[in-house]
Structure formats: structure tokens, C-alpha cells
């Protein structure tokens, strides 16, 4: 089952033009989501300084890539102050995300 999910995810990665672009940043994000739902600003605060990550937008972008391949989903929204007015979406890791996470632990880049 996990192997089938992984193959489907790899196919999605190709379809979304993300080959070679899913790596440590995405793994770090999914690890922070493994126990709680968080928004981009909160994730950034937890992983800043690792893997050269120094800006919230880098996290916003990587989360969006994970969402496109079905590894995270929008779970709600929170007001965090990243921007002045809008609420930020919060995210949860999906079953597919757990599978990808394990694969990224095995090989660093997909």
C-alpha cells in the first residue's frame, strides 16, 4: 500500500514539475506537522536556521508544493501576524505525507 502511494506521489511530483525539488525543507516541515497542526509562520519559527531557511516565504512556498502533491492539507486558520490582516491557513500532514516523509528519510531528494 505504502509502495503504491509512493509511486502515485512520485507521479504527482513529475506532473507538478517538482522533480528534484522535494527535499530537506519539505522533510523538516512535515516533521513539525507530525504531532500538531501549524501555520507557515509557526513552522518557520521552528525550523529557521536549518537547511539555509531564513524567510517565512520559503516555508510558504514549500508548504504549497506539499499541498499540490497531497502531502499536507489545510486544517483550519489562525491569526499570527505574518501579514497585518489575513488569517493564515494551518496545515496537517496527510497519510501520503507520512509515506513521503519516510522516503525522504531514506533518500534526501525526490
Amino acid at each position, binding site marked *: 500500500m505504502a509502495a503504491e502511494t509512493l509511486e502515485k506521489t512520485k507521479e504527482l511530483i513529475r506532473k507538478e*514539475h517538482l522533480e528534484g*525539488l522535494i527535499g530537506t*525543507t519539505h522533510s523538516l516541515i512535515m516533521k513539525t506537522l507530525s504531532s500538531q497542526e501549524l501555520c507557515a509562520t509557526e513552522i518557520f519559527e521552528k525550523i529557521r536556521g536549518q*537547511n*539555509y531557511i531564513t*524567510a517565512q*516565504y*520559503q516555508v510558504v512556498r514549500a508548504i504549497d508544493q506539499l499541498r499540490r502533491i497531497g502531502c499536507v492539507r489545510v486544517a483550519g486558520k489562525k491569526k499570527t501576524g505574518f501579514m*497585518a*490582516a489575513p488569517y493564515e491557513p494551518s496545515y496537517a500532514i496527510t497519510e501520503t505525507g507520512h509515506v513521503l516523509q519516510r522516503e525522504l528519510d531514506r533518500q534526501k531528494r525526490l
Partner: protein
Amino acid sequence: MEFYGWSGTTLRVNLEKGTIKKEPLKEELALNYVGGRGFNSKILYDEVPQGIDPFDPENKLIFGTGPCTGTIVPCSGRWTVTAKSPTTDAFGDANAGGHWGAELKWAGYDVIVFEGNSKNPVYLFIDDNNVQLAKADDLWGLDVWETTDALKEKLGDPDLEVACIGPAGERLSLPACVISNYTRGAGKCGMGAVMGSKKLKAIVVRGTKGVRVAHPEELIKVVEESIDILKTEDKWWFENFSKYGTPIFVMLFQHLGALPTYNWREGWFERAEELSGELLYNKYVKKKRACNACVYHCSAYCVVDEGPYAGTVGEGVEYEATGGFGSKLGNADLASTIAAKTLCDKLGIDLINCTDTLGWAMESYEKGFLTKEDTDGLDLSWGNPDAILEAIRRMGYREGNLGEILARGSRKAAREKKGSDYYSITIKGQQMGLVEPRPMWAWGLGFATSTRGGDHLRTQPAPEFMFTPEEAEKFIGTPKISDRFGWEGKGRLVAWCQNIRAINDSLENCKYFFRGSPRLYVEFPAKVLTATTGYEWTYEKVLECGERIYNVEKAYNVREGLGRQDDYLPERFYKEPLSKGPFAGTVMPKEKFDLMLEEYYKVRDWDQKTGMPTRRALKRLGLEKIANELGKVGRLGKAE
């Protein structure tokens, strides 16, 4: 020779003799310099002699459009004006959006070259094939909005496109710019002052011919694909930038510690939320507007309904207005920033030059370098919105002591107020765009090595904070560029961005079209050029053209005597750590800056000691003639 994309005709207007000639476009120029900025830069290098005064009749004022201008290519409605700059006394150009550039293409012209200086005020009227100079005595003295209205009425067509100068340009005030569509300023480098020195009040255009495209079906496909990439691969950016426009940067840069505050003393403003793009949108924006062929509609029509600035209307209230007249001057009154922007538009003043010059003036006033006598009694304390508006008015009209001081721009004014030059935040004499470089090192290097002086748009290294490290590794060659406080890879990133941005400006395509999606950087320019012009373009060829354009501009500056010493940031950024906000304590260490600069010169194959281009670099780009010229005057770099 017939072209697709390019109109194929250059207009050459001699303002001294009153003559107008039409010249065919040369294929060699088209294929090596692409259009717009590239064409203008090459013409400036070839035709404007070294060492002249920027207001000398020998200086030329060149307006250029790109091969995609006037087509459906997204965000391709821009145009560039180029001349030797009175702000930097070196290479100068400025770029604007709106609809004027597209109208010029539809009239059948890629470039207009103005030569000589007219004795009396004139305007140029281009009505497709009919081109004539006309007297502008009745327009001289009118502001930009009055001039635009008067010309539309006089010529009987409300849809005419007008680019003109206001009182600031007429008076050779160095912050003067050229404005089209009432509010679209070609701001940098004092181009409005050069236009004023030529007594050229306006260029009015009516074009009805359209643009011939080589492969229309293919172009539609490429355009649809690229918009789809933007909407899916850069979703957050597309949605938020479309809604809020550049004012969204107030809070974005605040969170990065990169919001210039109190004349670049800090990168964090305690009242930033009062200036946010979200607040502007919710309180003042009545309608969204767009440049020609834009997919974002980032511009906004604003109305102030109440308070001391009630009745103010304005369009294109950008981050450079809300942040520039806001945090940079310690002012949290958002409505006053709209009023200040509108006043600048009417007077024909560039926002960046204006706000940096005012920042210098306010800090100099605080430190005692400027006295009440200098300001004619005006209180230039931080955060005084009424004083800001009055100072802008005097800058535009060169009125009184303060008007004379401000009209010189911060660098030249600072030279006359001993000790205040430290507070003039300029590079090569040019005021900087609104990004604090201490926590954004690639931006710092980009500012410093910009060919038109301190400028964020020449490089705009958005990948530093918008690419993921994985994308950075794949497309730039190292993930290290994602570390905003790291030096490694920054030389490579900045050179790459400068080459790409040179192509943005030569296509006359807005830089906001590609920000976060690497695919757009890599695929878009070659695909649209191929479909539009019918010639085969590749990513490599496009990058080479960008590099060639950058080297020509660099050669112009080197010929004027500029070198490595001019590729540095103002001392403040090396000496003063930020003291507030999330990145308090951050400074740009000079030894790290030197490492970035040396990596940058190495990537460019320029002399690391002098910063001058080498024969090898120029020859590789087909610029051997320039290498010979620089060699003759002893301004050629040595290869490692």
C-alpha cells in the same frame, strides 16, 4: 527588412534643428540587445561621448519599447528612458508601466532618440506615420495632470497617451522623473531633469497599427501556459500581489527586518501595521487598475474620504510611497503617504529619490547639519506629514533655500553640508529602493553593483527569500543563497538575476511577473521571444544577451571613471547594527561584503582589483570593439 515583434523603425528627433528622421532597425541590434533597455543602453554607449555634462546638448534622451510591448504577452506594457544621468553623472535609465509604451508600438516605433536641446519648449506628437514637433509655451509651467489634460483637449482625443514632465523637470530638479498615464513614473536617475534641459515637455502618441507577431497560435499557447504556471506554482504570490499590490511589502519586509525606517537607521518600524497594504486596501482602495497586458492588476485607485487629506485621489500608491513617505521618514499617517504620492505625480518627482532626499534632510536636521535657516523655518522633524508635503512642493518648484537644497538630490546636497554625507544613502549617487540590505545580503550586493546606482530593480534577487533551498540548488547551483545572512553563492545569484532582469527590461516585461517560480525565469523569455519574433531563442542565448547588455552599461560607467570603489554600500550598513525588531544586532560585515563582491567579479570575469571588465569577458560577448576602446583609455580590467 521586415520584423515580427519589433516595429522595425527608430525615430530620431533633433530638438535643436527641429528635424525628424525615421531609421530602420538593424537585425544585429535586435538579436543582440532584444529591445527597450538593451537598445537604449547600446545607443547611449555608442553615441554619447565620455565626460559630457548630462544637460549638455550632446546628451541624448532615448525612449525604448520591447519586442513584446503591445502584444498579449503578460505584463509587457513597460518602457525605458535612458540618458547620461545628472544624479549619478554616469549611466542612467528609468522604467515605467502604463499604456504609453504599447501605444508607441502600435504607432509603429521601437525607439525614439532625442538629440540636442531645443531653445523653446516643445512637445512631440506621434500620430501613426505623422510625427511633428509643436510649440509647448502654453504648457510650460503646468503640472503633469494639467499637461496631460490640456494635450488631450487640444488634440481632441481623450485616448491619446501622454508622457511628460512637470514643474520639477522644467526646473532641472534632480529628483524629476518622466510620467505617463498621470501616475506612472519613470523615476530613476533624473530622466525628467534631462528632458527639462532639452525643453521637451511631452511626447504624445496615438497608435492604431498593432504589432505583427510571427507565430500567433504559439504565442497564445505560451501565454496561457505561463499564466497557469504563475497561478499554480506561485499561488500565494499571485493571489496576494493581485489583491494588495506592492504595498503588501510593508509587512512582508517588516517581518524580514528589512523595512527601511528613519532614513535607513533601522529595518523595523514600530507602527508598520498602520501603513500596511491590507489597511490601504481596506480603507482607501476604490478600484484596481492595470498596465497594458497585465495579469495582476496590482495598481489601485485610492480616495481619501476623511481627515486632513480628505479629497485626495491617487493611483499607483506603491510600497515606495507607503513605506517611503511612511517608515523611512518615521511617519505612520497612511493617508498622508497617498497625498505625498499624488503631489509627486503632479510635480513629476520620483518617489525614491524624493523620499531618500527627505530622509537625508530629516536626519541632517536632527543632527544639526541643516538649520531652520536652511529649511526656511520648516520643521523637518521625523514623522511630520505636513512638513513632508510642503518639502515636496518646494523640491518640485525649487522654492526658497530648502527647495534649492532638495532639488540637488541627497548626494549633491550633502556635499555642500559638511558632515551630512554619511546620511545620504546613495550608491554611485543614486538613491536606493526600499529594501534594507543588512538582513538581505544578496539585495545589498545587487544595490552596490547596479549599473544605474543604488537600485533594487536592476537585480531584484527575489530568489534569496522566495525560492526554496532545493530550488536554489537546482536553478542557481547552490542552496546557500537561501541563507539571507550568508555570503556564499551571492555573487553568482546576483549576476544571474542581473542578466535575467536585463532581459525583463529589454522585453519590457514587468519584473513582478516572475518572482517565486523558477520555471518562469528559465522558460518564459525564450518562449515568448521565439513565438513573437520568429527567431529561435534559447535560455542560454537570452542569458547571454542579458549579460551583454549589463557589460555595455558597465563599460559606459567604467569609461566615465567608475570602478570597484563605486560598488559599495553606504557606510551606515557596515557600521551600524540594527537595534530594533526580529533581527536586532544584524550588520553587513564589510569583509563578508568583499567576499561577495569578489565572487561576483569572478562570475562576471571582471578584474577583481578594479572591478573593470576584462577583454576576455567582453570578447566572449562579441564586444571586442568596446574592449579596444576601454584599452585605449586605460580602463580595461586584467584577467586572472
